[in-house]
């Protein structure tokens, strides 16, 4: 039938303007070679309440994590006696728009780096501090803070550096590979069925521009690799490790799929 559920199955026609001031690009023309004509932010698929929460930074619970990230930024840690600020100064300047262009090729490591890996490098090499364990609360807060310095900036990564293109290719292969006992690929849900409900969840295009995101279900920040792992687990497949070559390749490819969408960190999702 053509009941209410069919109408709800569309992304909304609405604008995301943070605090009534800063408009986010939540739909934009897809880059060449993209399966869609238009790329859409996950925000357009959420309920009115969830959308409103993200649009108002006083209501957005994740702004607490941004504040916590600012604290960590300025806190000395490690044997070198330095904080992030010792080298990078005011993040509002030094980190402005930086997060919008990750993952980035890292020549020394010979692989793409996301913000988490770059932060761990700085901790190890520049601060003589322990790298963060995956999903340590401070890692999520610091990455949220850094990405937030790109709020509104269109996402765009440089595929011409190093071997980024081959990582993109690998990520693309993975995106279309069906995994697990349920035999589903990322594309089964986020390409073939974007806009439809899968049980109570409104499927979006699965874009990464809001990460780390605040998930109401978990009442906590969720990192991108945690989300990837969750989606893969739901196909009843083994989950690749965070920051493994598989998940880094996926991050490169999926970030490209969202090219041009504003960084919304910290986004609110259910």
């Amino acid at each position, binding site marked *: 039938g053509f009941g209410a559920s069919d109408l709800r199955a569309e992304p909304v026609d609405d604008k995301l303007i943070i605090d009534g001031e800063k408009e986010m690009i939540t739909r934009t023309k897809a880059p060449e070679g993209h399966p869609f004509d238009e790329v859409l932010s996950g925000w357009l698929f959420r309920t009115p309440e969830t959308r409103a929460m993200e649009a108002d930074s006083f209501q957005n619970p994740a702004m607490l994590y941004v504040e916590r990230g600012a604290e960590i930024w300025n806190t000395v840690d490690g044997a070198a006696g330095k904080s992030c600020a010792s080298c990078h100064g005011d993040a509002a300047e030094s980190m402005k728009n930086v997060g919008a262009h990750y993952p980035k090729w890292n020549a020394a490591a010979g692989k793409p780096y996301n913000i988490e890996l770059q932060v761990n490098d700085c901790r190890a090499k520049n601060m003589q501090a322990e790298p963060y364990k995956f999903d340590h609360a401070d890692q999520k807060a610091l990455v949220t803070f850094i990405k937030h310095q790109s709020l509104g900036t269109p996402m765009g990564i440089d595929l011409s550096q190093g071997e980024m293109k081959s990582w993109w290719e690998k990520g693309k292969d993975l995106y279309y*590979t069906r995994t*697990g006992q*349920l035999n589903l690929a990322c594309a089964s849900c986020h390409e073939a069925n974007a806009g439809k409900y899968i049980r109570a969840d409104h499927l979006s295009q699965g874009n990464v521009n809001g990460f780390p995101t605040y998930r109401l279900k978990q009442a906590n920040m969720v990192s991108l690799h945690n989300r990837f792992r969750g989606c893969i687990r739901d196909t009843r*497949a*083994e989950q690749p490790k965070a920051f493994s070559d598989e998940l880094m390749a996926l991050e490169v490819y999926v970030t490209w799929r969202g090219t041009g969408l504003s960084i919304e960190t910290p986004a609110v999702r259910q």
Partner: protein
Amino acid sequence: AWAAGPVGPNDVKFEDATVKASLTGQPGDAAAGRKAFADKKLGNCLACHKNSEMSEQLFHGEVGTPLDGVADRWKPEELRAIVVNSKQVFGPDTVMPGFYTLEVGTHVAKNFQGQTILTAQQVEDIVAYLGTLKE
């Protein structure tokens, strides 16, 4: 001959997109099938299918065809084939999982390796339940 166990997932015979014989040699139980259909750990069919007969359940997905009146559209041997391995009926690109097949995706999690999503009896139960969905 001795009544053998249920036919194994690799031995199911597809003929023109149908599976003629019951996998267990027994008829299914529609009431049990109704439960397995809704159970998130078993069929979880509602994740993808709307089914008005189950309006007590809150959320119905939209990824698949609504199943209202499905028994008017498909014969039992066709419904069995769809549930056992939908790819035999809809082609390799369908998003619907195969519930009694070992033709699955890569990197299956350890605790699910070599196993089908449903048992032969659960497939028969669900097929019996689908047979009641007439308009």
